[in-house]
C-alpha cells in the first residue's frame, strides 16, 4: 500500500515539474479545498475513533462507566495486563484465538493466492468459452458476503447439508455424519468458506496484471526453448511482482481482520477452533461489557498488524533495491 502512496514520487520528475499548475494560480489552495471533504470524513470515521480507541484502552471502561465515560478512571496499562495474562482464561483465550487466526490467515492467503494464480494462468490464452469462466469465477467475489456465508452455513448443516450428503451418503468417505460448525471441524469450515470468497480477488488482480505483460516476452522466451513452467517463473512471476507485493499485504490485512465470515457462519456459538481474533474481541467486549480490555486487545492487534506490514514493506523494498543495484 505504501508503494502506491509514494507513487507520485516515483513518477518521472520532468512531467511533474512541467505540468504543475502551481505557477498558474500562485498559492495552491485549490487542491486542499477539494481534498477537504475526504479529510473531514477520514478524521470523523477513522482517525478520531482510533485515537479514542487508544484512550479507551487506558481507562476502566466497564459497564458501570459506559454511560458516564468521561469519569472512567485512568488505569494505565492494567487493561493490557489483563489481556495478556496467561494465568487467566482471558489471556489464554486471546492467545489461542491469535494462534487460530495466524493459521487461518496463512491457509486462506496462501491457497487463495495459488488458486487465483492457477485460474489466471489457465485463462491467459484466448479460447472459446474463456469469457464464461472469467465471469463465473468472479461471482463469489460479487456476491454479498452474507448471502455467500449463509449458503455455506446451510451446506455445512449436519443433517440437511450437502457436504455430509456427499461425504457420508454418496462417497462413503466418512462413516458418521460430523458436525462442521461446532468442535474442531469449525476451523476447516471457516477456512474453506473464506477461501471461496477470497480467491476470486486474487484472480481478478492477477488477471489485470497479466494484461500488461507484452506477448513479446513470452515469444522471446519460447524461442529460447523455455518450458511453460520455466516461462511462468522467468516471465509471469517477475512481471506480476508489483501486483503481488500490494495484493499479498492487502489480503493479509483483510483476512487477519476478518470478522464477517465467522460472525455469520457461527453466530453466537463461537467454537474455539473458529474463534478468529476480530470475532473474539467483539465477543469479549460485548459479553463482559468491559470495553477497556476490549480496546486494549484491539490496540495489540493493530500493533501486530502494523509491525508485520512494516517488516513486509521493508523486506520487499529492500529486495527491490538490491535487484536494481
Amino acid at each position, binding site marked *: 500500500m505504501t508503494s502506491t502512496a509514494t507513487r507520485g514520487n516515483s513518477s518521472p520528475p520532468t512531467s511533474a515539474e512541467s505540468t504543475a499548475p502551481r505557477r498558474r494560480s500562485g498559492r495552491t489552495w485549490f487542491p486542499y479545498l477539494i481534498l477537504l471533504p475526504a479529510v473531514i470524513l477520514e478524521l470523523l470515521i477513522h482517525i478520531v475513533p482510533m485515537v479514542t480507541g487508544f484512550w479507551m484502552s487506558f481507562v476502566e471502561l466497564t459497564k458501570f462507566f459506559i454511560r458516564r465515560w468521561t469519569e472512567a478512571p485512568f488505569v494505565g496499562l492494567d487493561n493490557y495486563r489483563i489481556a495478556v495474562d496467561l494465568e487467566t482464561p482471558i489471556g489464554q483465550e486471546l492467545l489461542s484465538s491469535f494462534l487460530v487466526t495466524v493459521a487461518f490467515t496463512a491457509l486462506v492467503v496462501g491457497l487463495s493466492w495459488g488458486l487465483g494464480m492457477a485460474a489466471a494462468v489457465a485463462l491467459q490464452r484466448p479460447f472459446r468459452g474463456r469469457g464464461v469462466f472469467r465471469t463465473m469465477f468472479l461471482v463469489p467475489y460479487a456476491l454479498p458476503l452474507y448471502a455467500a456465508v449463509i449458503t455455506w452455513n446451510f451446506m455445512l448443516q449436519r443433517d440437511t447439508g450437502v457436504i455430509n450428503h456427499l461425504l457420508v451418503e454418496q462417497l462413503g468417505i466418512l462413516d458418521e455424519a460430523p458436525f462442521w460448525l461446532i468442535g474442531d471441524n469449525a476451523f476447516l469450515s471457516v477456512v474453506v468458506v473464506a477461501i471461496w470468497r477470497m480467491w476470486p480477488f486474487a484472480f481478478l488482480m492477477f*488477471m489485470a496484471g497479466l494484461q500488461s505483460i507484452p506477448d513479446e516476452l513470452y515469444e522471446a522466451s519460447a524461442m529460447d526453448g523455455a518450458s511453460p513452467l520455466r516461462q511462468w517463473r522467468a516471465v509471469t512471476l517477475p512481471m506480476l511482482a508489483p501486483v503481488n507485493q500490494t495484493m499479498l499485504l492487502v489480503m493479509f490485512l483483510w483476512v487477519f481482520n476478518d470478522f464477517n465470515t465467522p460472525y455469520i457462519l457461527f453466530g453466537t456459538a463461537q467454537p474455539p477452533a473458529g474463534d478468529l481474533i476480530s470475532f473474539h474481541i467483539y465477543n469479549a467486549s460485548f459479553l463482559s461489557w468491559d470495553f477497556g480490555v476490549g480496546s486494549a486487545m484491539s490496540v495489540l*492487534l493493530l500493533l501486530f498488524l502494523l509491525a508485520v506490514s512494516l517488516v513486509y514493506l521493508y523486506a520487499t523494498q529492500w529486495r527491490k533495491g538490491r535487484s536494481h543495484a
Partner: protein
Amino acid sequence: MRETLGEKIFRVVVLAGLSAFVLLPLYVMVTTSLKPLGDVQAGFSWFPSRVTIAPYIEMWSTVPLARYFMNSLVVTSVATLFSVAVAIFAAYAVSRWRFRGRTPFMTAVLSTQMFPGVLFLLPLYLIFVNIDAAFGVPLVGTRIGLIITYLTFSLPFSVWMLAGYFDGIPKELDQAGKVDGAGNLTILLRIILPAARPGIVAVAIYAFMTAWGEVLFASVLTTEETRTLAVGLRQYATQTNVYWNQILAASIAVSIPVVVGFLMMQKNFVAGLTAGAVK
C-alpha cells in the same frame, strides 16, 4: 505459440476443479430456494422432487424484507453517490497537484485499511452518541449514521484507484483547457470526468458492493426500523424454525442487483485495477 499437452491438462484440471468449487454453493442456493420447507428439512437431495416458487412469495411476509431492502437501497445508494463524489475530488487533487501533505494524506488514507473494524466500532458509537447529545444530530439507529460510516469505507480504495486512472489521462488535455480559459473545476467536469468514466463506474460499483454487504457496523448502528438486509436476513431463523428455503430465496433476490451490476462492469473494473494497481 502452440499449447503443449501439459498446458492443456493443467488448464482442464484447474478450470474443472475451480468450476465445481464455485458452482456447488450457487447450485445449492438456487435449488434449495425452489423446494418446499418440508423437503429441505428431510435431508439434502440434488434434484428437487417438487419445485415451488412459494419461498419467493412467502419471504416477503415472514420478515419485513421489503423494508430491509429499502433501507439497504437508500443507505447504499446515497453512500455510494457521496463516496464517489468525494473520491473524485480527492483523486483530482492527488493526481494533478504536488502539494505539501500529499504523501502523508495518501499514506494515512490507505493505512486505515489496516485498522481492525472492532477497534473503531466502539469509539465511533461513543462519538455518534455524543454528537447526538451535543448537536442534536441523530446518528445512532438512523440511516444518516450508517451512510456517513459507509461512505468512508470505500474511500481509500476509490481515491487510490481513481488517482491512478486520472494519472493516465494526458495532462496536455488540461493544458489545452487552460489555454481556452477553463478553471480547475471546469477542467475536472468537462475533460477529466468524461475521459475517466470507466474508472468512475468501477469505483461506484466497488462502493456499492462494500456498503451492500457490510455486516458489523450495520448490526450495531441500526434499529428494527432502519435495519439493512445484511442484518435482517437473520430474522428468518426463529426460535422454533429455520426457513432455509426462504433465506436462500431472499439471499438470491438481494444478490442479483450487485452481482449483475458487477459482472456487467467487470471489464471497467479490471481496467481500473490495471490503471491503479499494476503501475
